[in-house]
């Protein structure tokens, strides 16, 4: 029912071999994380013989690190660099050979005493006439904190360096040792705008670890919530991207529609963002007849109101002038980083966890995965627009075929067993990877990897050669999560 995978204990040679495959592009890095004295790497084989069958495509390699060090993957495969820096910060395991020895999540403020943190050494900049623009971590808008260091030649961005980790909450530590209900609440708060996806990923991984299957109605209701969440976020992003080009009309329209989606979610599930509604073993709330009617109304409303907005977006030449060709990411880079979501699908990477993993109920539903090649802001907007349409179609199918039955396995009836589980779910940003190890009904170690881990580095690439004034537009079209990344 969930993502099939195998976890193997490997030695350093096999670890290096897996890194070779990553470098050669035969496999895609899903995540890299650690436990005390052990480091894990998850890779996805998109081309292997098992790919069509959907089995055995995800492999987890585990490497014991008795000397508190492991051979760096990031040394040869850049997508692993930040993950390995985070591993070193969180677990003290040293990636041997990683050229970037700077901390990543650790800002030097985790100690007990209030020692002033050492200055972070940004990458050196050489050249005549270059100047630096530091932006953040506190921004003028109501957004999360992150620091951007621009190096510019006049208006042209020569390099952007990101510095993240300002919203580190210690999720990994909080989850370790937590009983399941508490752990589910923590997982739901990893990134507020994709709380359903986070909860869903956690619940699926736990269910796989305990070898239980949630009731069918719960599986379908989860998909309803996931699609409602996707609709709300895509609508919000669409308006916000246009607003960053000072086209506030679109923000007003999309803001109204997003609000309708959120209010419908509150009517149906009792919470605007549907937080804590997906729990291990099922769902916490049922959808009653009134909720069903509200969802039908919502779909009808969006079916009527979205097409004129698509036309408005497409017909506004001044807006197209801003979005077309801005912030291009090459398909090669997207493939190398295995970037998911609209970032990947706008540049030719047709990966969607709903389709690739084929979990229920998506295996029983018909939908398309929109893929574009341009890789610019416009393409990322269009992927969102197409996904809104697909989500509406999915919602119609889900509401039509909603099975009846129980909602959840009560917490008391959940087995108190041990085991490991993995889930790869499609949040609105892209694929969310969750791996969990359970011991006696408690979480021993849980790792959540937000899609943003592989999208943030591409933002640095996207802005290169663009002008400074276009950065907000590029940034909003990526809309990466700070919280989901900083953990």
């Amino acid at each position, binding site marked *: 029912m969930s993502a099939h995978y195998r976890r193997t204990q490997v030695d350093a040679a096999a670890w290096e071999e897996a890194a070779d495959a990553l470098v050669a592009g035969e496999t895609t890095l899903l995540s890299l994380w650690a436990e005390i004295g052990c480091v894990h790497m998850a890779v996805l084989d998109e081309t292997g013989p098992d790919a069509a069958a959907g089995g055995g495509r995800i492999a987890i390699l585990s490497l014991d690190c008795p000397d508190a060090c492991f051979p760096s993957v990031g040394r040869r495969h850049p997508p692993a660099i930040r993950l390995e820096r985070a591993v070193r910060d969180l677990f003290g395991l040293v990636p041997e050979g990683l050229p970037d020895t700077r901390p990543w999540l650790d800002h030097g403020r985790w100690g007990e005493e209030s020692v002033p943190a050492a200055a972070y050494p940004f990458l050196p900049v050489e050249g005549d006439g270059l100047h630096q*623009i530091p932006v953040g971590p506190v921004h*003028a808008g109501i957004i999360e904190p992150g620091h951007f260091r621009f190096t510019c030649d006049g208006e042209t961005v020569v390099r952007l360096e990101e510095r993240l980790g300002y919203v580190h909450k210690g999720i990994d530590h909080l989850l370790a040792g937590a009983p399941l209900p508490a752990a589910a609440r923590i997982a739901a708060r990893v990134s507020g705008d994709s709380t359903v996806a986070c909860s869903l990923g956690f619940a699926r991984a736990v269910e796989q670890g305990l070898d239980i299957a949630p009731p069918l109605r719960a599986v379908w209701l989860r998909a309803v919530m996931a699609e409602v969440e996707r609709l709300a976020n895509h609508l919000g992003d669409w308006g916000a991207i246009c607003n960053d080009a*000072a*086209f*506030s*009309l679109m923000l007003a329209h999309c803001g109204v529609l997003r609000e309708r989606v959120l209010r419908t979610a509150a009517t149906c599930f009792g919470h605007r963002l549907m937080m804590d509604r997906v729990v291990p073993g099922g769902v916490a709330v049922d959808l009653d007849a009134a909720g069903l009617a509200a969802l039908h109304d919502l779909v009808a409303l969006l079916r009527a109101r979205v097409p004129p907005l698509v036309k408005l977006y497409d017909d506004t030449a001044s*807006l197209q*002038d801003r979005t077309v060709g801005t912030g291009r990411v090459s398909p090669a880079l997207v493939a190398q980083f295995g970037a998911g979501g609209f970032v990947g699908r706008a540049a030719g990477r047709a990966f969607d966890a709903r389709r690739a993993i084929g979990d229920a109920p998506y295996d029983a539903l018909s939908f398309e995965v929109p893929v574009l090649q341009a890789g610019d802001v416009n393409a990322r907007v269009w992927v969102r627009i197409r996904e809104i349409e697909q989500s509406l179609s999915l919602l119609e199918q889900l509401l039509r075929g909603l099975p009846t039955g129980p909602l959840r396995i009560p917490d008391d009836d959940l087995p108190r067993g041990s085991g490991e589980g993995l889930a790869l779910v499609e949040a609105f940003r892209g694929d969310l990877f969750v791996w969990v190890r359970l011991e006696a009904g408690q979480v021993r170690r849980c790792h959540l990897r937000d899609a943003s881990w592989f999208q943030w580095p591409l933002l640095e690439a996207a802005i290169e050669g663009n*002008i400074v004034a276009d950065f907000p537009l590029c940034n909003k079209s990526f809309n990466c999560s700070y919280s989901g990344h900083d953990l």
Partner: protein
Amino acid sequence: MNGIALAGAGWGGQGLLAALLIQAGQMALVLLAAPLLVGIVRKAKARLQRRRGASVLQPYRDLRRLLGKEVVLAENASWLFRTAPYAIFAATWVAAALVPTFATGLIFSWTGDLIVITALLGGARFALALAGMDIGTSFGGLGASREVMIASLAEPAMLMLVFCVAIVAGSTQLSSVAAYMLTQPVGLRVSLALALVALCIVAVAENGRVPVDNPATHLELTMVHEAMVLEYSGRHLAMIELASALKLLLFASLIGCLFFPFGLAHAGSAWTGYLLAIGLWCGKLLVMAGLLGTLELSIAKMRVFRVPNFLGAAFMFGLLGVLLLFVSRGM
């Protein structure tokens, strides 16, 4: 020369005191009305987005709040940073006093013509750009460099359309031009239409409105005018905000008096004439505020490097207007 001759005739009949009173009234009125105009534009934009929007009086409240707040100065701020807001405000206010908002023949209007107004605004901008760079933050420099780039293109366009109007009316003196437009059978002239378009473009650019700049943005990296004033606070910021409101009013009044001068009072009008003219002026401003709001909503902001093309168009319109006039008069 023409101006001075007219000046004698202008307030001669009225008495110096009355003329001064009217001028003082005009200056007070523009100062009082400027924040309201900003409020109305914001309200129009909000209503068009189906938002309720803040009260049209909000800019006044903002000014009162800013005046009541203490000024936070960067440690390395020089005297320039502290004095620039007053210089900017003074220059803009004087420029606004020279425009025949609701009446021609105001006493001060004989002291300077359209070119002086352009120069005063240019001087204010020069001070603001310097102040933006004074503290040495990257945003101030970024904003100043963008502002100066825009200004270097807007000013030639402005001068070109001044010439165009001046050739038609035979004077660069605003009062004379407005009086000429009002009394002579100018008719529909292609040159004037071109000059109107050019002036609208220049006005949008000078006031930092969409599509050149976005006064409502919070995105530091895209700002032009706002980037320069990011470091200002308290009464300094109030002066700058008031000056930019005055500038918006100035350009709106300029478009009104040059191209839609109907209803302007003139020296020697009765009090009722002045009152009627003030009412008409307010009406014109309302219409323009509505049009500006609509324009800002219907268009996205252009890339920074598109602005030269946009202002280049204004310059070409001005130039074409001048050339057409020469051709039609056969030199």
